[in-house]
């Protein structure tokens, strides 16, 4: 949403367009905050998808609703509400029967229960609060264009802290995600790693959804990571690609929204979806190539067997 007065218009001069976008402090803060969210969500989102915990991530993102309404009811800063409910949600999901290494279906049902309960609590808090809860649209979609300097700093600090912890536990977490029994046999605290990852996810979501809203943080958690996974199965390049895609998506979405009448959350999600579609096409083409390669390889191997039979 451009400032009052003359609407900014897109020109063919890219440098001029970029300088238009960077003219306002609120746009710079939006780009900084969006970049911090993209890096954080790109890294933690990749691990979330490997662990098949997208539903848990979605549920934690929605904790923003009871969190914000409880904070309004209690008369404290919204950040405390987000933090309390995201951490409580992460702990609740971590304690579900089955857990990360139990039956996936059982776990999904448990996460669904937590999500339904959280939303019901949110409705309760809103009705107890009585008054109109400020800006419901802002609550769901965030307000990237109204980010304060303090919020930018907070996001960068949380982003660095969560990334550092994630890096420290990355390999044991990955091993216990793909091979929980083998990891336990090697002395890794599989249960603690699982709960710890949910807590990290909760913290990351609590910090970012105040700015981006729960819906946008979820699309940034899922789509860049899913695109990266479609492009490559190598962990390190996939993490780099996930972060890079997230950054490009946020920057492009913000820039387009600056020249458009539609909000940034919409554009960022649309660009992310376009990148995801593109990456699926690339993945489909390379899988097809691989299959054809395998087919010729097999027929090459079969030739001697056939001649032997003859």
């Amino acid at each position, binding site marked *: 949403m451009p400032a009052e007065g003359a609407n900014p218009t897109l020109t063919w001069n890219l440098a001029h367009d970029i300088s238009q976008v960077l003219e306002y402090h609120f746009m710079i803060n939006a780009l900084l905050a969006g970049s911090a969210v993209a890096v954080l969500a790109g890294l933690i989102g*990749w691990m979330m998808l*490997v662990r098949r915990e997208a539903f848990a991530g979605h549920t934690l993102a929605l904790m923003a609703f009871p969190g914000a309404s409880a904070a309004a009811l209690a008369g404290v800063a919204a950040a405390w509400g987000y933090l309390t409910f995201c951490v409580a949600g992460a702990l609740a999901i971590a304690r579900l029967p089955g857990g990360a290494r139990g039956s996936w279906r059982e776990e999904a049902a448990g996460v669904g229960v937590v999500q339904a309960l959280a939303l019901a609590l949110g409705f309760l808090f809103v009705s107890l609060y009585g008054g109109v809860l400020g800006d419901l649209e802002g609550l769901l979609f965030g307000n990237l264009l109204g980010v304060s300097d303090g919020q930018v700093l907070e996001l960068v600090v949380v982003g660095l802290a969560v990334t550092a912890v994630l890096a420290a536990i990355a*390999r044991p977490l990955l091993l216990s995600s793909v091979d929980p029994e083998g990891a336990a046999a090697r002395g890794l605290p599989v249960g603690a790693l699982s709960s710890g990852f949910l807590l990290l996810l909760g913290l990351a979501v609590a910090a970012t959804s105040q700015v981006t809203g729960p819906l946008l943080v979820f699309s940034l958690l899922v789509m860049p990571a899913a695109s990266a996974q479609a492009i490559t199965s190598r962990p390190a390049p996939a993490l780099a690609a996930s972060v890079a895609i997230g950054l490009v998506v946020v920057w492009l979405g913000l820039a387009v929204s600056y020249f458009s009448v539609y909000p940034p959350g919409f554009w960022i999600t649309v660009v992310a979806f376009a990148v995801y579609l593109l990456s699926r096409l690339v993945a489909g083409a390379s899988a097809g190539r691989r299959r054809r390669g395998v087919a010729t390889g097999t027929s090459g191997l079969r030739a001697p067997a056939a001649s032997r039979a003859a």
Partner: protein
Amino acid sequence: MSTSLVEPAVELRDASVRLGGRTVWSDVSLRIEPGEFVGLLGENGSGKSTMLKVLLGALELQRGSATVLGRPPGAANREIGYLPQRPGFGAGLPLRGRDLVRLGLDGDRWGLPLGLGAGAAARRAAARDRVAGAIDLVGAGAYADRPIGECSGGEQQRLLIAQALVREPRLLLLDEPLDSLDLPNQASVSALVDRICREAGVAVLLVAHDVNPLLAYLDRVAYLAAGRAVAGPVEQVITSEKLSDLYGVPVEVLRASDGRLAVIGQPESPSHHHDRHDHDETHAHAG
């Protein structure tokens, strides 16, 4: 280290395990020498996986004693390659077989291998070489760089064996590695484990419910049934007499002309024996 030549890889003496109030097996004695290939046989539910958990130190013995590589169970896990029984990897897992093997090498290390300088680069190269060596050893080079979920069951099993081998363990514990493989793959994975056992001098305890793919390779078998076990060479253990005695009901072992064995007449499930009380009650209520 000089004692490692004489100390057994595994030694159980008069061991008993209780799980959930039920004795899974009792008075089991088993000794596996270094470099020996031993099959652990028995019906589903006879406590084969339980025995692996005991050897890994995840379950306490109720009675008797156990040593693994000369130490109490659990103390030598870093020198054990363990392949749990698990469903295959789904197509969605965004990892290559090579990454899986790499996790076997240093997946339990905290932090990231980000060191700079010649030493760190040399360590990284050495780690890559060890992963490549393990992949070569199981003959998985052709598909190690494909997404693991796109590999067939036999290919996944070879990569998992490479993962268990990459740290050059002295003991391999393989839980049903032949399960869910077709017959040609059962034969080739059996031959692979035998080759690794002989070439690398690793002791192997392989859990299976069908002995036939392994007949040509096993040094000895341990057969678990009805809460007890017998161990010894295949031809001495899998006999009508021994198994009838073990199960407590007449069991017949037939040998086909190609040497394959068939066990006929064993109770459907050994847990049936322990559950009989419950069954009787059910019948009493029904009647």
